[in-house]
């Protein structure tokens, strides 16, 4: 009982002060017929030493870390995380604090989140950023809901088939009890067919959602897509890859109305899927309609500059059912990770990382497609990730790679109908700045290239 403070003698004293005979008496308000009359059936307690032993054994049963070489993608990537990022988020004053409602006791977090918002605006070229959403998928949904509020159109949302299937599934769930139609435009060539997009959009459409680079790794034509949306009064919502902005044009450059992202690449470990970081940015004019917390700068009683949570009137704890979102707990500590990461890499580091990813991915694509039976699924430019089709089947190549110490994937069959049968022999391969030529060569050799 390492965490409980009061000793039996103290508990007695306290009960006496309270005027109760026993601790049980304090629970008198709980009706007898609701009380659990037995002990919970949970595994027996463990000391720290035992816990460490047991969990280390379990961790050892995962194929991860150590000598593995990770080329997996699909929205989560094995990017390098500088040690200084870990150091920043390891400060107890950050990670054991609550949401910074009490401004005087939270200037550290508040300023850090203000800096996060500022950095993300600069990264994306967008006007404003909130202080984080749950992750990339819900950011897309929140963006679509905001588009409905902004446009007043609640009937139709158009999303490209080249958008991460999980993002699309989340959107479908979020819309499942509403009357809004979700139109998914197939992208058999790996990217949007502009003519189809144009056809799908109309004056009932709240927004067009696309991803760039998209789920298959391919580059879309973002400026065109944003223009098409604009032309029918819909918002363009792009899901981008933060690392790609060390090389590619920014959402603000190509006219996106809302730019969201999974921020995992910015210094966040893969940890089997979360916690990650939902980045959410948009045009200034949407500020009072946007979801999520915002930190603003102001001055204090005697004019000193300081930071506070602001525009809270949008949020659930004030506006309740009229709130712009139901989000309360967000992903503060991950936003702090991204802040530290962006501060450390700076413009030049981000460029280096992006170019390394790009170069190595192209080298890997070249090497892997030299393997008989393996080819690129799409003839489209890509950034750091690409889709391979494998005559021998997706699972076979993944297994072969895994046995040689390389993790590829996911296999697109994992996504079922959200991707469809036509790509069930396909796998994703992502190459980050961490991979070396040697590893890529070894992988190709292991796969028979």
């Amino acid at each position, binding site marked *: 009982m390492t965490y409980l403070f009061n000793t039996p003698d103290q508990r007695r004293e306290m009960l006496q002060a309270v005027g109760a005979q026993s601790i049980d008496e304090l629970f008198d308000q709980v009706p007898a017929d609701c009380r659990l009359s037995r002990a919970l059936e949970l595994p027996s307690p463990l000391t720290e030493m035992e816990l460490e032993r047991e969990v280390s054994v379990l961790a050892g049963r995962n194929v991860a870390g150590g000598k593995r070489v990770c080329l997996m993608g699909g929205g989560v990537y094995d990017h390098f995380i500088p040690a200084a990022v870990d150091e920043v988020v390891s400060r107890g004053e950050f990670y054991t604090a609550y949401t910074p409602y009490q401004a005087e006791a939270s200037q550290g977090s508040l300023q850090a989140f203000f800096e996060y918002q500022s950095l993300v605006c600069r990264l994306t070229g967008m006007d404003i950023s909130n202080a984080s959403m749950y992750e990339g998928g819900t950011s897309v949904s929140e963006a679509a809901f905001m588009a409905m509020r902004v446009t007043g159109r609640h009937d139709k949302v158009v999303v490209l088939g080249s958008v991460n299937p999980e993002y699309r599934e989340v959107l479908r769930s979020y819309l499942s009890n509403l009357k809004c139609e979700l139109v998914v435009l197939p992208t058999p060539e790996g990217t949007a067919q502009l003519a189809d997009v144009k056809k799908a959009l109309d004056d009932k459409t709240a927004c067009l959602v696309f991803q760039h680079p998209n789920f298959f790794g391919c580059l879309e034509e973002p400026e065109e897509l944003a223009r098409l949306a604009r032309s029918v009064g819909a918002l363009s919502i792009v899901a981008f890859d933060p690392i790609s902005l060390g090389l590619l044009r920014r959402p603000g450059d190509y006219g996106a109305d809302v730019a969201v992202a999974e921020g995992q690449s910015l210094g966040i470990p893969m*940890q*089997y899927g979360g916690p990650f970081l939902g980045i959410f940015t948009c045009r200034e004019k949407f500020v009072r309609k946007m979801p999520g917390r915002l930190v603003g700068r102001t001055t204090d009683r005697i004019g000193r500059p300081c930071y506070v949570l602001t525009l809270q009137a949008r949020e659930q704890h004030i506006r309740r059912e009229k709130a712009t979102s139901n989000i309360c707990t967000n992903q503060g500590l991950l936003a702090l990770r991204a802040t530290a990461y962006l501060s450390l890499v700076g413009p030049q580091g981000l460029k280096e990382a992006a170019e390394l990813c790009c170069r190595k991915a192209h080298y890997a694509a070249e090497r892997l497609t030299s393997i008989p039976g393996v080819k690129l699924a799409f003839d489209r430019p890509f950034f750091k990730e690409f889709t391979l089709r494998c005559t021998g089947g997706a699972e076979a190549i993944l297994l072969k790679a895994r046995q040689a110490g390389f993790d590829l994937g996911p296999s697109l069959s994992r996504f079922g109908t959200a991707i469809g049968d036509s790509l069930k022999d396909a796998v994703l391969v992502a190459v980050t700045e961490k991979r070396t030529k040697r590893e890529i060569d070894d992988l190709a050799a292991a796969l028979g290239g």
Partner: protein
Amino acid sequence: MRNLLAAKPLFELAHAGRRGCTFPASDVPERSIEALVPKSQISASLPELPELAEPDVIRHFVNLSTLNMSVDTHFYPLGSCTMKYNPKRHERLARLPGLVDLHPYQVDEAAQGMLAILFEMQEMLAEISGLPAVSLHPAAGAQGELTALLVAAAYFRDKGQHRTKVLFPASAHGTNPASAALAGFECVQLKGSAHGLVDLEELNAHLDETAAVFMITNPNTLGLFEPEIGRIARIMHDVGGLVYIDGANMNAILGITRPGDFGGDMMHFNVHKTFTGPHGAGGPGAGPIAVRDFLADYLPAPVVARRGGASDKPAYRLTVPSKSIGRMRTFFGNVGILLRGYLYLRTLGAEGLKAVSENAVLNANYLMTRLSDVLPTPHGKRCMHEFVASARAVQKERGISAMDIAKRLLDYGFHAPTVYFPLVVPEAMMMEPTETESKETLDAFADAIHKIVAEDPKFLHEAPHSTLVSRPDDVQAARKPILKWEPSAS
């Protein structure tokens, strides 16, 4: 030991040409980037990120951190937030490479250790809630609510019922109505009783065949256990509706009573509260839900299943419930936080978990008693894990508001309680000490409050006095929002 230089805005610390993290030169055969990516896609300039060296960054953020209060440094009796101690073993173990470096799309056979942990977490939460089917998927409590409501909607759709209303007491947390609205329900807010409880007549008056879900936080926001919870549930079930238990206050009743035992059909846990997340200055959390058997098939995907019987296949796998509402987010869930919750539960066991609630409730009652002379608690002679005291008397007599006391507490080295919530209590001060605080700390805190209410009111209006800033101007912040740093603004 303040260093205001290092705490300047990040951007003002930058200098062109400085480098933090650098990357190696490319080792693959050189090709120009334009040969790889169409020139039209390439940005003409770099993002305008600040240029800093690693020492700049560390000194900046370490100094910022010291401008915070936190559980590691201060007593933090913020009501409704369960600011308990976050064990350091969790931080160490959650960092094990086999856990932290695991890609979410790693195939099941290569993630058996993780799946075993998550499966056991599902089982433990089912046992603690008394509700057999668990989804670890939701990212936080609010998403748990939304998820459960969409599960309910799917269930009713499946049964061919058109139920449109979600009901909740006026004291409900803001996420309850917000989630209901987002899920496409109509929101019905019920007035509470004079005792701070659900008013059964009011509830009855709003019930009909369109009632889908009644959402209730139990123990409630006043720190009271709804004595009529059994009847409330029966009434709701009688009209064919479901009862949702907002589990934010589970810290009061672990191993004592279970939502499934007092009539709940669905609930969420706030792992970052009850199972010591930690809070991360706002997040991340994890908001797993537990539901009754008949709702299990609608749970979002994926859930972890264990293969029965002897098999040479791996024991654990991800599955999709047969009528699943689909996904509510990408990937499995906020695994890093779930893991910490798992470590906590494995450390405590059944007895330890019950002791958590016993001590949380004892601490709250003790503190309430210690403060009863100056800050009486209008609702209830006893409380559960938290209580809502009122500063109305000192406000009337001496002109000292709840806000004054809260701000002045910072000077004494204590974080403030939650103030002005819930609205039913005038000059509300909602205090939740949690079980990981000692009697000594509670006494010191109570002593501080006694001193404060005797201080000069004018001095208190200007509190805090020891912090870097005091009483920020919220109105100015909202009127002309400055939401990012700009060169001119500095």
